[in-house]
């Protein structure tokens, strides 16, 4: 453990620094679009902020946190030093250069294309090249994770890989698979257009390639939360993991089913027929399988802990759980938000029903609840859990940690519930200033103010989070209280090769991707969409 603390802390502080900046921007946006800030800021500033908020939360916070957490897991779960540490630092600095190259054009307003690009709108080439550097940096991390697991398996032939590492490598492999889409779009379509080498762009193909990445990237963000559910929550609650096999199966199901479903982001697009859209809806239904298995397995694990602490009756174990421990509190709050966010997703994937809420605040509420809520609150819990191990210091009191988690939960719920209601009424997305004089929009004003107030609560929570981590750096030295990773009810002795490696699953992913994306992409080779003129934003 001794040689990666600085590496992990460097990644986490970049992640949480970007998170704090983006939280401030998010709150500013809520103010500007509410009746209170009707004349504040110009549309240019607003869309610059939306781009920065999306890039920081979606690309910087996530990628750096996942890389830092991966290095931590590779060292602690495998109990061996990290192979290729020099490469890890090289990947870190390359990603930092990438972030800077992305941030400068955003700040000068020459990349206000939002984090989803929207060709034929084209930003500064530095913006896209910066993102490519961050992705390449994360690819190096993926290779290091795979190499670490392979080395461990050589040294421990036949023994099951620790579940935490198995999940981390599943995440790395999924990330390698999914970045193929955005890399192809950037390298072959968007960057040549941004550099002026091409004057036109095939928008249908660009959107389809981006959709290849657009869904599995949210599972790339989500998997660390699931690793914490399976390998940290049971131990923190004082119980055992109900089933280790289900953990492995969940990560495998995520690998297979999160990749071929990206086109459900294009249900309302004119470049695909509804036959391929129905296949995507059916596959998306199976993406809910790993999540549904997880909520049962983890609730069962918590039930074990609750009953061991004296919980009686059908639900007595809930009250008996140690809710004073941040990890346990975070898992509870995360599951509540996962319920509401999952419900939003169920409606989104409703084939024809997607037309009811596509590109409305319902969708914004969905991904703020699932990513911003249940995943990011687990990022907090993971940070609180491993910070003592990284710094060798202990918390003097857990109260501020719990307060921060509660504030985040309350802020997220109060912000997003009105959005569901406004989304059903047709409130559309990415609006710099609403025309509150319009009778239909006037009714939304009070709810937007409610969401803005919740935004302030979230900002307070974000500030408190960074404060809690900083204070820990200055607290007194303390021995680590208890081991981190959970034991299963039946620790696995031997596990089929299929549940200990990814060879089989990579083949299956190749087959499923060919079946799901083969025809939709081939269609652009057979009959390309008429190209559109590039609209440069400088």
């Amino acid at each position, binding site marked *: *453990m001794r040689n990666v603390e600085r590496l992990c802390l460097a990644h986490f502080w970049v992640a949480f620094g970007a998170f704090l900046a983006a939280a401030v921007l998010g709150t500013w946006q809520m103010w500007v679009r509410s009746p209170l800030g009707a004349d504040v800021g110009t549309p240019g500033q607003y869309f610059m902020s939306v781009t920065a908020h999306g890039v920081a939360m979606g690309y910087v916070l996530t990628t750096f946190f996942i890389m830092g957490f991966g290095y931590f897991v590779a060292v*602690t*779960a*495998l*109990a061996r030093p990290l192979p290729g540490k020099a490469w890890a630092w090289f990947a870190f600095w390359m990603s930092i250069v990438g972030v800077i190259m992305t941030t400068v054009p955003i700040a000068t307003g020459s990349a206000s294309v939002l984090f989803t690009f929207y060709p034929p709108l084209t930003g500064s080439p530095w913006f896209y090249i910066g993102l490519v550097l961050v992705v390449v940096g994360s690819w190096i991390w993926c290779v290091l994770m795979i190499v670490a697991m392979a080395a461990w398996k050589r040294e421990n032939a036949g023994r099951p890989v*620790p579940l935490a590492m198995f999940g981390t490598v599943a995440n790395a492999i999924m990330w390698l698979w999914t970045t193929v889409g955005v890399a192809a779009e950037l390298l072959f379509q968007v960057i040549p257009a941004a550099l002026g080498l091409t004057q036109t762009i095939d928008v249908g193909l660009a959107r389809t390639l981006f959709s290849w990445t657009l869904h599995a990237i949210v599972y790339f963000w989500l998997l660390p939360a699931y690793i914490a559910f399976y390998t940290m929550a049971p*131990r923190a609650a*004082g*119980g*055992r993991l*109900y089933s280790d096999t289900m953990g492995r199966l969940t990560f495998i199901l995520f690998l297979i089913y999160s990749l071929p479903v990206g086109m459900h982001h294009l249900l309302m697009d004119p470049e695909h027929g509804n036959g391929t859209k129905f296949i995507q809806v059916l596959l998306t239904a199976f993406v809910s399988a790993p999540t*549904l298995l997880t*909520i*049962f397995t983890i*609730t*069962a694990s*918590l*039930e*074990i802990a*609750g*009953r*061991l602490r004296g919980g009686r009756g*059908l*639900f007595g*174990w*809930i009250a008996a759980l140690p809710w004073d*421990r941040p990890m346990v509190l975070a898992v509870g709050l995360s599951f509540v938000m996962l*319920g509401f966010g*999952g*419900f939003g997703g*169920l*409606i989104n994937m*409703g084939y*024809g*029903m997607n*037309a*009811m809420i596509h590109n409305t605040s319902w969708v914004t509420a969905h991904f703020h609840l699932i990513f911003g809520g249940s995943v990011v609150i687990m990022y907090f819990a993971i940070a609180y859990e491993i910070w003592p*191990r990284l710094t060798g210091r202990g918390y003097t009191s857990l109260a501020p940690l719990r307060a921060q988690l509660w504030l985040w939960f309350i802020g997220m719920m109060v912000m997003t519930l009105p959005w569901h209601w406004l989304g*059903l009424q047709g409130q559309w997305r990415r609006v710099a200033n609403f025309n509150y004089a319009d009778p239909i929009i006037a009714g939304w004003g009070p709810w937007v103010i409610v969401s803005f107030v919740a935004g302030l609560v979230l900002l307070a929570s974000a500030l408190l989070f960074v404060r809690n981590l900083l204070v820990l750096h200055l607290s007194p030295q303390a*021995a*680590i*209280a*208890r*081991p*981190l*990773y*959970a*034991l299963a*009810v039946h*620790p696995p002795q031997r596990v089929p090769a299929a549940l200990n490696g990814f060879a089989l699953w990579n083949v299956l992913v190749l087959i499923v991707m060919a079946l799901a994306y083969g025809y939709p992409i081939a269609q652009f080779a057979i009959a390309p969409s008429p190209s559109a003129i590039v609209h440069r934003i400088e």
Partner: protein
Amino acid sequence: MHSDQPSASDSPFEVADEVDEAALARVMRVVPLGAGVLAGAAVALLVLGYLAIYLLVFIPRGTIG
């Protein structure tokens, strides 16, 4: 928080936990029932909500094709 000696590593193989096997066996006789009922009720509620919104909000707004 109950503390034991700082472990060289946190790998699950090396460090047992303070869960007593007999107590675990007793608990395991009833365990997934509470979780099953709670999670099952939650998922059933979600699906009922989905069907309700499908029939009461989506369909009345007019067919779409």
